[in-house]
C-alpha cells in the first residue's frame, strides 16, 4: 500500500462522519496512479465540498506530496 493512499485515507476519515466506510482503491500505472475514493453516501458532500473546493484541495495536496515520489496521483471520487 502506498503512502499516498494512506494519506488520502487519513484525510477522508477525518472529514467524514462515517470513517469506517472510507475505502480507497489504488490503480497503479507507470507514471500515474489513480486513487479511487469511496465514502458513505451521506458523506459525499463532505469530501467534495462547495463548488468542489474540498475535492480540489485534496487533489492539490496529493499532487504536492506526490512530488516526493515523482509520481502523478489522480483522485476519483466514486458515487
Amino acid at each position, binding site marked *: 500500500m502506498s503512502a499516498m493512499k494512506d494519506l488520502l485515507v487519513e484525510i477522508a476519515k477525518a472529514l467524514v462522519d462515517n470513517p469506517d466506510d472510507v475505502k480507497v482503491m489504488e490503480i497503479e500505472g507507470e507514471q500515474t496512479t489513480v486513487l479511487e475514493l469511496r465514502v458513505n453516501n451521506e458523506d459525499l458532500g463532505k469530501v467534495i465540498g462547495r463548488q468542489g473546493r474540498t475535492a480540489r484541495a485534496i487533489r492539490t495536496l496529493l499532487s*504536492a506530496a506526490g512530488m516526493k515520489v515523482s509520481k502523478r496521483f489522480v483522485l476519483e471520487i466514486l458515487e
Partner: protein
Amino acid sequence: MNGAERFLGGSLDECLNQACLALGARTEELQYEVIEDSPAVVTIEAALDPVAVLGLFLREAFNAGDLDIRARIEEAEEHLGGELYGEDFRLLTAGLGKGLDSLQYLCNRIMNGRLRSHAPVHLDGDGFKMRRAGRLQEDAEAAAERAIQRRGPVTMGPFTPAARREIHLALADHPSVETASDGEGFLKQVVVRPFRLR
C-alpha cells in the same frame, strides 16, 4: 473549557471512556477537569481540545503520507497556529504554497466538522507566508504596470484563495487598475485591468 460536558463514573477511566463515546473522540483529544473524586463516584467536565485534535490529525496524516514534516500547534488569541517544519515541508511550499494552502483549507473543514466552534487554523513554516506576500505584491505591481501599458487586462495565476487575497490587497488602493477573480472552485485566476475610461 469551551462547550464542556459532565460525565459521571466509578473511576476516572470510566468517565473518560464515556466522554470519548459521547464526543466521538480519542482520549488524547480531550481536555478535562476532575470536578468530584470520591470513592463512590468521579465526575469530570470534558471537551475536545482543538490543539490536540489538530496536532493529532497532522501527525497521523504526515506519518501516513511518509512525509518528514512535524507540526507545533499554538493557540493564539484569534487563530490556531500550526508551525510546520522538517525536510519535506518544501513540498508544501512549492508552486507558491499550493500544498500548504490546501492542507490549511482541509484542516479548517475537519475542525468545523468536529468542534462546535473553533478559531481558524493558520499553517505556516519559517515565515513562508510573509515572504510569499512580498513576492505576490511585487508580481501584482508588475502586472498592474503591464495592464496600464497595454491598456488591457493581464491575467495572473491560478492561485489559491490566500494568494489571491494578497494580490487583491496589494492593488486595492492602486489609482489606475482594479482586480477580480476569474474561474470556479479552489484555484482561480486574478485579472488585473485598467479602470475603464469614462
